[in-house]
């Protein structure tokens, strides 16, 4: 019967990669536009992989030894660090590799680890990276160096995958808690902020000497050492090359052993989320006095009359800015960058800062405006509460806009005043603020319409394995790009008025500012009206777009 006809059981090492492939494939089938997204992803990988391969081959045959070594050493480090930390920072889509999902199966550790490692290599990005590393082997493997290059790049791939699994498994339990996720959002933002800060401050001034100093440090680390072994093999320093190859390879078993320990802990541990929740609940228990005669607070809502729904939305948004690190940090980043941009640009003028530089302060709301093109994303499935309330999309947008204005308009003022203090261009402050307000209005008007017509969902689950958006990155990026283009086109008249002010002077410029403000108000009203009409006509569609999981 069935038992006698059944094939032999397959090892987890074979089952898990197939599981990942099937989940990715089925995920594409289930999501709206999934096929388009997958095609775009494949096209992207099909471009990046061969271009990377060709670049590595070309670099390998170039005569610039310093460039060869720097690119190889820094590149290898980037591959390993990126592979290790990106799943944490992007709350990636690798749901298939969550060890806790496998805890109920009688899996032995060895096959499980082999299966998880193999599954890590299934996907477009791993294939693209593998092709890139093959380019290194081909490009740098001449003169017999291939005997070192091939194991070195294989070891780099294995080391990257192992360390990635080790890091994600070790942090999995932390990252599945709310506080853990919040901390990770914070870390992500600090990293992004740091990188952007570096870009503003230093990246343009990095010269070859600096690169060499970085290179000297990185080649002492495992991925850099593997890259350096290829360079030394190519130069005929075989003993050194073998030593540099052997040392990182010896680390792989150690990393595997560490990961095995972490997996043992994960697979033996039952989920302690309910206990955590209970502890949290008890910690937050309020004093008895607060339980009697509660009254609405923090809403500026006094009196017995009804309150416009947009004010309730604004109050909710303000609370979310404080409590949801994703939103708070998104806005904080936007404001910081918006402030930093004009200031750094002004510093670029040197010591003799012209008074018209104050006008740069008007751009302080620019990033906030760009972020306003997807305002319903973070509401996600909770948007049903707004939809069933009958409050209308206009109230939701006005409430959200009100909070954005209260945060970004002060940034415009602060930036303008700061630049005036540096340049002495005080007559331009009013003009700058008017231009900034005009741009804010125009941008929010466009953002409101785009938010309703082209909402992009943000994954509900935010642990390291739970994004569920695999294969859709390209399509979403294209939508975002087009939206940004539209916003910039609508902001162009404000920018032109700003440019005209530079030659026209502060007095006429203030007139231009008034015109910009009128333009902004007009565009905001128009955009909000169109958005409200479109949104109210299909609130259910908006809900479905921001929470696709409900549309099963």
């Amino acid at each position, binding site marked *: 019967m069935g038992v006698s006809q059944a094939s032999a059981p397959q090892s987890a090492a074979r089952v898990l990669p197939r599981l990942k492939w099937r989940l990715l494939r089925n995920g594409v089938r289930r999501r709206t536009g999934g096929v388009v997204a997958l095609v775009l992803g494949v096209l992207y990988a099909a471009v990046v992989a061969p271009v990377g391969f060709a670049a590595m081959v070309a670099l390998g045959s170039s005569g610039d030894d310093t460039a060869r070594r720097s690119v190889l050493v820094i590149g290898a480090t980037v591959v390993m660090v990126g592979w290790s930390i990106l799943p944490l920072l992007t709350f990636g889509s690798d749901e298939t590799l969550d060890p806790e999902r496998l805890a109920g199966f009688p899996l032995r550790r060895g096959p499980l680890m082999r299966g998880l490692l193999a599954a890590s290599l299934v996907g477009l990005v791993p294939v693209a990276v593998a092709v890139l590393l093959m380019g290194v082997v081909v490009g740098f493997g001449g003169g017999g160096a291939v005997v070192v290059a091939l194991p070195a790049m294989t070891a780099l791939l294995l080391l990257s995958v192992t360390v990635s699994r080790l890091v994600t498994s070790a942090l999995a339990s932390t990252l599945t808690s709310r506080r853990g996720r919040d901390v990770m959002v914070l870390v992500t933002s600090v990293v992004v902020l740091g990188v952007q800060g570096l870009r503003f401050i230093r990246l343009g001034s990095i010269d070859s000497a600096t690169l060499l100093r970085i290179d000297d440090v990185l080649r002492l680390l495992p991925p850099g050492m593997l890259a350096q072994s290829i360079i030394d093999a190519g130069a005929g320093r075989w003993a050194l090359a073998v030593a540099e190859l052997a040392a990182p390879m010896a680390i792989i078993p150690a990393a595997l052993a560490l990961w095995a320990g972490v997996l043992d802990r994960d697979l033996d541990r039952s989920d302690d989320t309910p206990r955590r929740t209970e502890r949290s*609940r008890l910690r*937050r228990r309020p004093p008895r006095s607060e339980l009697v005669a509660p009254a609405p607070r923090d809403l500026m809502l006094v009196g017995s009359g009804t309150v416009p729904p947009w004010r309730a939305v604004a109050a909710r948004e303000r609370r979310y800015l404080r409590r949801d690190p994703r939103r708070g940090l998104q806005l904080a980043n936007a404001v910081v960058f918006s402030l930093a941009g004009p200031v750094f640009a002004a510093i670029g003028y040197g010591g003799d800062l012209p008074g018209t530089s104050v006008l740069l302060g008007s751009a302080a709301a620019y990033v906030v405006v760009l972020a306003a093109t997807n305002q319903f994303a973070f509401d996600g499935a909770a948007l049903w509460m707004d939809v069933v309330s*009958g409050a209308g999309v206009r109230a939701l947008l006005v409430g959200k806009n009100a909070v954005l204005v209260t945060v970004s308009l002060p940034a415009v003022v602060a930036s303008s005043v700061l630049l005036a203090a540096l340049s002495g261009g005080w007559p331009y402050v009013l003009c700058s603020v008017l231009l900034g307000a005009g741009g804010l209005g125009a941008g929010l008007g466009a953002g409101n319409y785009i938010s309703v017509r082209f909402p992009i969902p943000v994954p509900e689950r935010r642990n390291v394995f739970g994004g569920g958006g695999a294969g859709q990155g390209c399509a979403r990026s294209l939508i975002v790009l087009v939206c940004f283009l539209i916003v910039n086109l609508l902001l162009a008249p404000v920018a032109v008025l700003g440019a005209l002010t530079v030659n026209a002077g502060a007095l006429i410029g203030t007139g231009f500012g008034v015109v910009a403000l009128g333009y902004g108000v007009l565009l905001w009203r128009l955009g909000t009206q169109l958005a409200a009409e479109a949104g109210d006509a299909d609130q259910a569609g908006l809900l479905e777009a921001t929470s696709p999981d409900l549309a099963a």
Partner: protein
Amino acid sequence: MWPAVVMRGLAKRYGHKDAVVGINLDIPRGCFFGLVGPNGAGKTTTIRMCTGLLRPDAGQVWLNGLDVWTDTVSAKALLGVLPAEAKLFDRLTGRELLEYSGLLRGMSPGDVAVRFAEVFQVLDLNEAGDTLVVDYSTGMRKKIALACAILHNPAILFLDEPFESVDPVATRTIRDVLERFTAGGGTVIFSSHVMEVVERICDRVAIMDRGRIIAEGATEAIRAGRRLEDVFVELVASAPHSGGELGWLRAAPGSPPAW
């Protein structure tokens, strides 16, 4: 006078799958109405279409005579909704969430303050008033979502699986609140798998299967002296099993995998 809910030709299709196939249903006012059916029968889809959360492909829904999809605002003002696995604005505290829900529905802050004190008391949520909803247990989430649904004193309550994942104490509390609501003239429509609860508290019941209503009427009439669960199983179960299948299940269990 219009019934509380009237559905005519209500239909929804997901891809190639018909989730709901032309439902016609009248639910009288003041009724405690149970919508039961196996998984995937179309209960949740039906409730979402009735509450303005999912646009039907065909058909119409009237609530107290108001078309949900044309008199949207007026119809929604009549409604209280508790979706299955309701995602809430969970970075608000329970107290703030209730405030938000009430104010969004046009209640005055004073009315909100008075009512939520009572609702929290009845639903035994007092000690969780200042806890973020994200830290609530499943049962507490159900209760706070129910509190949001009833705070504005709706005429009709739609509840999707209100008793799922809820402990017996919370179940009793929710049931008491709902019975009080219908005693005051409100209408409750709820879906459930728990036949005992449906049998005990519902005046009327509809059984759904594969997107269709296959039985509807007064609970007593549907039961016809039997247990509702037996009637349900008889109506929706596929071909009976011979008992010959799963023979291997009686063999010695627990042999470890070969790898």
